[in-house]
């Protein structure tokens, strides 16, 4: 354990100094903070479309899936990547359509907005 631990910490510090992880953590918390303030302002009326929209947004995993499917590293990862592209596309495409379909239902008094 004594041998492992300092090495582990050293490695961690090294990576943090490289910056990308630390910046990633900054970005994560800033986005989460911003998200918190926006989402608490969404009226319960729109909670279902909010959920289908954020679900569509989290289909951004497609970016990672495409990279892996397209880099042709080896057969196994290419297959996994392609399945991942397929799964993420269902949400990326379907998520916005169902949100639009749901939102189209919400009309104000007297027809409201179109």
């Amino acid at each position, binding site marked *: 354990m004594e041998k*492992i631990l300092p090495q*582990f910490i050293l490695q*961690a510090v090294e*990576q*943090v100094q490289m910056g990308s992880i630390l910046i*990633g953590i900054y*970005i*994560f918390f800033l*986005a989460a903070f911003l*998200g918190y303030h926006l*989402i*608490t*302002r*969404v009226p*319960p*009326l*729109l909670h279902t*479309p*909010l*959920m*289908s*929209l*954020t*679900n569509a*947004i*989290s*289909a*951004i*995993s*497609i*970016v*990672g*899936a*495409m*990279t*892996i*499917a*397209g880099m042709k590293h080896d057969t*196994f990862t*290419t297959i996994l990547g*392609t*399945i*991942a*592209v397929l799964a993420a*596309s*269902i*949400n990326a*495409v*379907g998520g*916005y359509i*169902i949100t639009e*379909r*749901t*939102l189209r*239902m919400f*009309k*104000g*008094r007297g027809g*409201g*907005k179109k």
Partner: protein
Amino acid sequence: MSPQVINFFYFIAALCFILGIKGMTDPKTARLGNIIAAVGMTVAVIGTLLKKEIVGYELIAIGFLVGGVIGTLISLFIPLTRLPERIALSHAFGGLAASLVGIAEYYRHGAEMGSIKIAAIGFEVLFGSITFTGSLMAFGKLSEILPSPPITYKFQNQSNILLFVITVAIWIYLIFYPGASHIFYTMVGLAFLIGILIVLPIGGADMPVVICLLNSYAGLAASATGFVLENNILIIAGALDGGSGFILAILMSRAMNRSFANVLFGAFGAVSSESKQKQEEFYAGKVKVTTPEEVAYLLENARLVVVAPGYGLAVSQAQFVLGELAKVLKSKGVDVKFAIHPVAGRMPGHMNVLLAEAGVPYEDLLELEPSNAILPEADVAIVVGANDVVNPLAREDKSSPIAGMPILDVDRARTVVIIKRSLAPGFAGVPNPLFIKENSLMLFADAKQALQEILNNIKGVVSRLH
């Protein structure tokens, strides 16, 4: 294309996502928000296609086309009453995608990964896999392929917690020994198993909380993917989704006055059979039964009618009849409002979507507090397919399992009409004293049929259903 240019694409996409969610804060801008978010996704996908690491486009195109067509077909043709299932299923796909990306990344260069990266991969794969099987379970329960009541067995919580501890221990082990690939795949398998096991003991009416939590997990998994691939757009979009799901889960469990732990581990709603007899005694001889004709008369002569819908409305697909009834009453000068409890239905906002579909203007869909503010002035309150969310025991009996849960005070209206098929208890398994209150009238019928008969009576059409 240089990484800077691609990062610019991602930056635009991130802005679009944030603006898209901002649009959702008002029904007037919500559709625009959705379009902006969709533009963001398109920009992110185009940016990724320009990456020089990508050398083959055929498989991406095939995956995208097949997934896109499936997604489009599901989203266009699924009835809105089945939206909770659709949402659960989409969380499953999101979790699966994140999980597979993590596995592929590990396979590519697991052994030479730094400890922080392997920690992120572990996190991504854990959350992705739990989300995948957990959401499939939720889908099964919502679509009633699987039994909707909690499934319990001895030492369930203990064994689940043990399993979870083992999985986390493996995750920590991997941080020190990233090369132990068989251990990594064991962890993936355990995560799939955990997803199944944690949803088993959760009953149908607790699904709003579970769906929100799975939504949050799917987001966190996507965010972890961002750490693995060092891609900020994934981190941002995942954080937005993770945060949103988490906030909604908190709102939902607060609306039931229960803790997360109670929802997840309480196996709430596992009704024991001995209480049935007690419930019969509870109601014996005290229930007043009414007819559609009488309700029609009451409604026509009311000034303010408040409708409290519940999951039963969705089950019997009664939203269109209800919408028409509201329209007819309004044309006769009766004011009609809808009182929407946050956990009415199977997902957040479920009732709002259904009633909006039936043409009810959204100004008439009231939240809990404004509803309770006008209920004492209502001449008639109609409860359609709801039970626990209108149970006064929550206010009055501190020992009740629903004690302290905020409810719609429909009993404060002058007359309460409860449309319900039987006196069967709601999800919480407790009798409802509302049904025997002095100002309560029970109409035993299927919601759709009952509303149709009331509507026919008001329209002066002789009901053929008799």
